[in-house]
């Protein structure tokens, strides 16, 4: 593992891209990784932890295999995003910030994702799903479960 971290540090150089790469690889940024990274880069542990917990797309805890970021900004809200969010919460049995017991889904209700012309919209593992309806949500969840 340590040699892999060296490689990431060398190719990404800046802390934010390094942390993003670690999260891409492991699904989250572990305490062990933060400690190792601090040792290798001489950046204080507290600072790395501060950065890893500042941004909403970085996480220091393991998340589900499918990560949903659903928008609840005004453009989506006036197009019924709240109903869609409630439907997802009911279907998955979780609230924002939680992960399902089978570790299949993590739900985040968040800020605008820039798909306001196709509201309501969400990101599923970084991919856009828009003009959401309950039927569409059902299909997406079913596909992830199969």
């Amino acid at each position, binding site marked *: 593992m340590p040699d892999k971290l060296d490689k990431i540090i060398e190719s990404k150089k*800046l*802390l*934010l*891209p*390094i*942390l*993003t790469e670690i999260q891409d690889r492991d699904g989250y940024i572990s305490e062990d990784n933060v400690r190792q990274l601090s040792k290798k880069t001489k*950046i204080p542990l507290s*600072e790395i932890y*501060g*950065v890893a917990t*500042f*941004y*909403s*797309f*970085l996480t220091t805890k393991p998340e589900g295999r499918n990560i949903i*970021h659903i928008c*609840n*900004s*005004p*453009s989506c*809200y*006036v*197009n019924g995003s709240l109903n869609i969010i409630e439907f997802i919460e009911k279907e998955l049995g979780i609230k924002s910030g939680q992960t399902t017991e089978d570790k299949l889904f993590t739900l985040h209700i*968040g*800020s*605008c*994702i*820039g*798909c*306001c*012309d*196709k*509201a309501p919209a969400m*990101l599923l593992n*970084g*991919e*856009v799903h828009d003009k959401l309806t309950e039927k569409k949500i059902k299909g997406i969840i079913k596909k992830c479960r199969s």
Partner: protein
Amino acid sequence: MQILEKSGLEAWKKAKEMKPEKVISLLNKKGLAGRGGACFPAGTKWEFALNSESDKKYVICNADEGEPGTFKDKYIIINNPETLVEGILIACNTIGAKHAYIYLRREYRYLEKNLTKIIKKIIKKADTDIQIDIVLGAGAYICGEETAIIRSIEGRRGQPYYKPPFPAVEGLFGKPTIINNVETLANVPLAIIKDDWNPNLRLFSLSGNLKNPGIYEMPLGTSLKELIALGKPEKSIKAIYFGCAGGCIPFNQEWKIDPEFINSTGCMLGSCTMIAVDESQSIVDIVTIIAKFFEYESCGKCTPCREGSMRILSLLEKISLGYANMDDIKLLEELCCVIRDSSLCGLGQSSTMHILTALKNFREEFEEKCRLR
């Protein structure tokens, strides 16, 4: 659309033959204003960086388009990335920078692959040793603020800091840096090469209760009626929101979309975001949703914004649930003014504009909620 026109590196070649001062005066003569929201003349910003002596300088392209309701930069990155990259190269060459960063918001990660390809292609074609790197954000509205973007690229928490020193003097890694919005940089080559380039055309992001939302290019000075008609509303429109930070106005059809006029209504046109809200919506609910957004996105550095946004949200929830009285409205208004006047950066300062303008224009909706008590 003007923004989709190409220069095909003609502007790059022309600018390279010119003295930096000449490029800057040309941009100022053409009237290229910043499109991130502040309308600061792009040429003047470049001039500050040009006059700052340093061994290294940087250009940052701000593609952290986070203002809710805004998707114009995404439109440019998808539809005319070549001209954007050319604009970045011209900016670098003019101020004497060898390195540029495109700070791309994390929500747009799916654009990274193609943009990387275009950067490589244009740099090769332009035959330059300027380096352009994409730095992916990680989800933080505040990182659209120029000092926060600097901190974020440096690998720190994306929290703003007091100016001066201004970035053009002391910016990224302590070196002179210019930070321009995507739309500004994409317009640079067009302003340089096209004789008929129109400085007044803007990309409007239309969304909300509309049948045809989307990006529309229209000149400043267009009437609200004409612009909103493009979006084809199905019900009668009650209010227009200029994103979350820009405040709201009643849908007065005859009003013209002009930054100075919009300012006079207590709002900010900003990056030309317009969210149309129809009569079926409750302004109190929308205000509460927006307050939640600011509470979530406050970076936590300064007290008025960090603590105030929480208090604002709890007051609004109290009002929207019908538990408040008229004194709560007064308290809300006072708190909004304090946050506006004492926050460190633009986020905090503008975070209550939507409430103050809603109280000005739709006060009866708040009072009605309190009367239930």
